[in-house]
C-alpha cells in the first residue's frame, strides 16, 4: 500500500502510446471495460493458479514453500503468481470479472470480500469450512457473506497497538498507560523530556491516521456503531463522530510534527532511534525493523476511554478467496483445505518474518513474548474490527485520508471537515 510500483509505469505507458494524455486515459478506462481479455489461465482440472500480493521477500518465499509442499502431496497441483501489492489492488476487480480468471486470490476478510460476494464473483467455500470446525466463531462470521455462505478462508491475523522500546521507556522512567487520562499524562511527561511523544507517518501512507479514528471510535462509540458508520448506515457529521475528534484533539499537541512528511517506515526508524516515544501501528511495521531491535519492542493496547463500552481491538485478517468462475472448483477447495490446516499455517508463520497469528487455533504461533501478549490481547477482546478500508471499502479510504490529514492540520475546522467527509462518503456509497 505504500511503495511505488511498476504497474503505474505501465499505466503511463498507455498514456504515451496513445500520444495525447486524455485520449490515452480514456482508452485505458475502456480497456478495462472490455474485460473479456483477462489473464488466461489453465483450463479444466489443470493447476490451480494463485494470484498473490504477498510480494515482500520473506512472505513470497513462505508462499512458495507452501505451494511446493501442496504439490508434493499429490492431491492436486498449484502455481503461484506473485504481483506487486498496489498493482494487485487496482487489478483485482479486473481479474475477478475477466472471462477466464485465476482461481485463488490473497485478500482481506470483511466487507471488502463481502462486496465481491454480493456481486456473485466469489466461490462458495462452505465445503472447506466443514473441515474447519476448530476455527473460532468470530472468524467464521467474518468469512460469511450476507446469504450465509462462507466465501473466505482466513490464513492469519495481526494486531495494532502503541509500540515502544522497552529500554527507552525504562530510561524515561515511564510505564504503559491503561486509561486515556494516564495516556495523556504519559505524553506530557515525554514532552517535558524533549521527546515528541506520539510518532506517526502520513507522508505517502496517510491511511495510518485511520487507525486513530478507528480506535477512538470503537473506544467511544463501540464497534457496532463503527461498522454501521463505515457501511453508510450512520453519518460522519453525526455528533457522536464529532466526539471522536474532540478526544483526538486532546492528544494533538503530542504528535511528532515531522510525522506528516514521512511514511510509516521512516516513522518506525524514528521510533527505534528514540526520536519519538511511541507509535500506533500494526505489527507489519516490524518488517522494517532490524532484528536486534525486535527483542526490545513492546506494546500496549489503545487506552480505555469509556469502560462501559465493550472492549474491541483491530485485528485485520488476511486469507484467501476464490473466483466463482474457476474452472477447477474441486482443486481450488483442496488447496484451501490444505492451507487451512495446522501444518500449512504453522509453516507459513514460521517462514514469514512478520509478527502474525495463525487463524487456525490449533496452529502454534511464535512463542516470542510480543506475540504471546498480542494473542492474549485479541483473545480478551469482545469484538474484533478489521481496519478502516477493510470494514468499509478501498473506495472509502481516500475520503478518510483527506478528512483525517486535514483535521491534523486544521483541527478547528472540524465541522466543515466532517460535512465534506459525509458528502464524499455519500458519493462513494452511491457509486
Amino acid at each position, binding site marked *: 500500500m505504500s511503495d511505488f510500483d511498476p504497474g503505474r509505469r505501465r499505466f503511463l505507458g498507455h498514456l504515451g502510446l496513445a500520444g495525447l494524455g486524455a485520449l490515452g486515459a480514456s482508452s485505458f478506462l475502456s480497456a478495462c471495460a472490455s474485460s473479456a481479455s483477462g489473464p488466461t489461465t489453465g483450463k479444466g482440472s489443470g493447476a490451480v493458479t494463485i494470484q498473490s500480493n504477498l510480494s515482500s521477500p520473506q512472505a513470497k518465499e513462505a508462499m512458495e514453500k507452501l505451494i511446493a509442499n501442496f504439490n508434493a502431496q499429490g492431491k492436486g497441483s498449484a502455481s503461484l503468481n506473485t504481483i506487486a501489492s498496489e498493482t494487485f489492488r487496482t487489478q483485482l476487480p479486473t481479474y475477478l470479472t475477466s472471462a477466464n480468471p485465476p482461481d485463488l486470490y490473497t485478500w482481506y476478510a470483511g466487507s471488502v470480500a463481502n462486496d465481491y460476494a454480493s456481486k456473485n464473483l466469489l466461490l462458495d467455500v462452505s465445503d472447506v469450512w466443514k473441515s474447519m470446525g476448530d476455527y473460532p466463531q468470530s472468524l467464521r462470521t467474518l468469512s460469511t457473506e450476507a446469504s450465509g455462505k462462507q466465501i473466505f478462508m482466513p490464513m492469519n491475523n495481526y494486531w495494532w497497538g502503541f509500540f515502544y522500546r522497552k529500554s527507552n521507556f525504562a530510561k524515561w522512567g515511564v510505564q504503559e498507560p491503561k486509561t486515556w487520562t494516564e495516556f495523556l499524562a504519559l505524553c506530557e511527561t515525554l514532552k517535558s523530556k524533549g521527546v515528541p511523544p506520539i510518532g506517526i507517518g502520513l507522508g505517502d501512507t496517510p491511511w495510518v491516521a485511520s487507525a486513530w479514528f478507528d480506535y477512538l471510535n470503537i473506544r467511544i462509540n463501540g464497534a457496532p456503531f463503527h461498522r454501521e458508520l463505515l457501511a453508510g448506515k450512520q453519518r460522519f457529521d453525526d455528533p457522536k463522530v464529532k466526539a471522536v475528534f474532540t478526544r483526538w484533539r486532546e492528544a494533538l499537541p503530542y504528535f511528532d510534527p*515531522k510525522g*506528516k512528511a514521512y511514511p510509516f517506515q521512516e516513522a518506525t526508524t524514528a521510533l527505534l532511534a528514540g526520536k519519538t516515544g511511541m507509535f500506533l501501528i500494526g505489527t507489519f511495521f516490524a518488517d522494517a525493523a532490524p532484528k536486534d531491535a525486535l527483542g526490545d519492542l513492546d506494546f500496549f493496547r489503545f487506552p480505555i476511554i469509556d469502560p462501559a463500552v465493550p472492549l474491541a481491538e483491530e485485528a485485520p485478517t488476511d486469507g484467501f478467496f476464490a473466483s466463482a468462475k474457476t474452472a477447477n472448483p474441486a482443486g481450488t477447495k483442496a488447496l484451501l483445505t490444505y492451507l487451512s490446516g495446522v501444518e500449512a499455517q504453522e509453516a507459513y508463520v514460521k517462514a514469514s518474518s512478520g509478527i502474525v497469528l495463525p487463524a487456525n487455533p490449533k496452529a502454534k504461533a511464535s512463542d516470542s513474548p510480543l506475540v504471546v501478549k498480542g494473542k492474549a490481547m485479541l483473545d480478551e477482546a469482545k469484538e474484533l474490527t478489521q481496519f478502516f478500508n477493510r470494514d468499509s471499502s478501498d473506495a472509502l479510504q481516500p475520503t478518510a485520508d483527506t478528512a483525517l490529514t486535514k483535521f491534523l*492540520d486544521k483541527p478547528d475546522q472540524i465541522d466543515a471537515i466532517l460535512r465534506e467527509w459525509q458528502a464524499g462518503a455519500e458519493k462513494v456509497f452511491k457509486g
Partner: protein
Amino acid sequence: MPFAVESIWVFWPALQGFWFSLTRWDGMSPPTFVGTDNYVELAGDATFRGALLNTVIWLVLFGGLSVLGGFGMALVLQKERRGVGFYRAALFTPVVFSLVVTALVWRVFYQPDGIADTLLRAVGLEHLIRPWLADPQTALYAVILPALWRQIGYVMVLFLAGLKAIDPALHEAARMDGANSWQRLRHVTIPQLKGVNAVVLSVIVIDSLRSFDIVWSLTKGGPYHSSELLSTYMYSTAFQSLRLGYASAIAVVIFVLALAVILGYLVRAFREEA
C-alpha cells in the same frame, strides 16, 4: 489502412471513453446510463475545481518556466566551445531518468532534515523550513520543481536544434546593419524559430496535462487535494474510488482542454502565415 488501425487504437477507445462519461460504472457491474449527471456533479465538485485551478497553475508555471529556462539555456549553450557538451549533457541528464526515479531522488531532497532543510539551515533561513510535500501551501510548487528540473533539459534540446537550423548568414547580415545582440535575438532568432515554437508549445501543453507520475509518486495529490491535478484526480477517482463513469467525465474534460489550447494555437499560427 493506417487510418483503420488508428481508428481501432485511438478513436474507438476515445469514443468509448466519452460514452462511459455518461454512465455510472464501478468497473465490475455493467455500466448504467445516467445522462449528463457526471458533468452536473463535476460543476459542483470543489475538488474538481481545485484540480482544474492547479492544472492551470501547472500549465502556466511548468509550461512558462520550462520554455524560458530551456530557451535561455539553449542560447547560452548554442555556441560550440570547450566543455559546452558537458553542460548540455548535464542539463539533459534528468530527461533520461524515469520520472518515478526522479521522484525518489527529490523525496530524499525534501524529507524532514533532508538536503533542502540542511541547505536552508546553512544559510540561516531555518524559519522557512516546513514539511515541503505535506504542507498544502507548498506541496504543488514542491512538485513543479522536479518536473521543471527535467523539462528544461528537454525543451533546451528542441531549441538547440532550432537554433542550429538558422542560417548564420542572417545574423551576419544583421550585424552588418549594426543590430546589437538584443535586436538580433528579437528580430532574427525568434522569428526564425517559429516552427520550433509550435512543437515546443504542443509538447508543453501535452506534458502538462498528462503530468501524473511525478505528482502521484511524490504526493498522490495530497495533502487533502492541495496538489491534485486533473490527471491525478482522474486516476484516484477511477482506480481508488472505482467511479469509472465520473473519472471518464474528468478524462473528457482533460481532452477538451488539450484540444482547445492546441487548436487555438494552430489556428492562430496558420492565420498569420496566410
